[in-house]
């Protein structure tokens, strides 16, 4: 079976069964849940330490209300880390190379932050559309630009992740063939 450069990006399918769901869930096997102990084995200790480090970095600048996002953001970063790093191994499929998956991650999260901000502090979130210290004649143009950048953001986020991963994998393949 001859592999072209782009075969690794097609959604895997075995005997007609789409394997996208196992490829999303199986990396979780590498992260064992720590269980009921106070002192764990080495693997769990290191993973817990790492998770703790990430959560601390994310949550230290935020006030108490912002800590509600801790679970979502930490689990998101752990999932993306494991999926993307495992995709570097040969004969693996990286789900995040699919634009559909990345848009499914980007759009709801972006919309959630936007709507939460609009709901809780409407004037402050609208005020973000105008950077501080702009000269007065530029105000209308700048508001339009900021609104456009806000609306483009989910597309930018999704495409950024897809493009980065696809480019990386392609690069590995090119280097190994050339």
């Amino acid at each position, binding site marked *: *079976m*001859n*592999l072209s450069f782009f075969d690794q990006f097609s959604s895997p399918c075995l005997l007609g069964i789409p394997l996208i769901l196992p490829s999303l869930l199986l990396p979780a096997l590498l992260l064992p849940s720590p269980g*009921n*102990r*106070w*002192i*764990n*084995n*080495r*693997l769990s*200790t*290191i993973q817990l*330490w790492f998770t703790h480090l990430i959560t601390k970095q994310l949550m230290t600048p935020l006030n108490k209300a912002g800590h509600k996002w801790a679970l979502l953001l930490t689990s998101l970063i752990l999932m993306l880390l494991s999926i993307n790093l495992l995709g*570097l*191994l*040969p*004969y693996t499929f990286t789900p995040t190379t699919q634009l559909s998956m990345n848009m499914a991650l980007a759009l709801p999260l972006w919309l959630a932050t936007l709507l939460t901000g609009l709901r809780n502090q409407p004037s402050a979130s609208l005020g973000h559309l105008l950077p501080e210290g702009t000269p007065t004649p530029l105000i209308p143009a700048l508001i339009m630009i900021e609104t456009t950048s806000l609306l483009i953001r989910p597309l930018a986020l999704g495409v950024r992740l897809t493009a980065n991963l696809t480019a990386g994998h392609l690069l*590995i*393949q090119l280097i*190994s*063939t050339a």
Partner: protein
Amino acid sequence: MLSRLVLRAAPAVLKGLQGLPPPVSAGILHVARPLHTGQHRLAPVPPLPEKGGEVRHGLIPEEFFQFLYPKTGVTGPYMLGTGLLLYLLSKEIYVINHETVAAACILTVIIYAVKKYGADVAAFADKLNEEKIAKALEVKNEAIKALETAIEEEKKEQWRIEGRSYLFDAKRNNIAMLLEANYRERLLTVYNEVKKRLDYQVALQNLKRQKEQDHMVQWVEKSVIQSITPQQKESIAKCILDLKALSKSAQVAV
């Protein structure tokens, strides 16, 4: 790793299923749910084993080699591996392509990293756990030390109490001295008062006697002077003149 979990869990499950009464154990396959018999035992959690499961070449559990040993001896698993690999390659079930090269490079890097930094990472994980345990032990030791110092202080207080009697004796002596001093002071006052009154009486009597004496002398003088007749007066005046002359001559003689 997962195979070991299954192997370990299997006897416990089988034993649990065999504990059921015979009519039920006959239809064991239909029992999918474990029955809750016996107490919930959540603590104490059984301790972690000292060492992880034995693996050979970092990947294959030792149990696999032991499993094949009775039939194929020591080289059995290696022959199996080599044969399998060569079969896959020769029949082109596994095609060598660019991903093989990538796999080889990645594998080399991974093996090198594990060999070089594996021990350090393990030591780091152990250090994290040690620090956790040390913190808890610290709390316990601090508590013990605080209690020990409290015991020492208590013993010292008890020793201090033994000297209580000396303190009370000293206080008693103090009070006794105060009372004595006060009593003597008042005695002195009484003595002085009485002496003053007696002195007054004495002075009164003395004065009376003095007055009487003076009065008597005066009366005697008066009566004597009254009794001097005029001619006696002349002779007395002549005597006085003579005495004056005599005194003058006596003074010259001295």
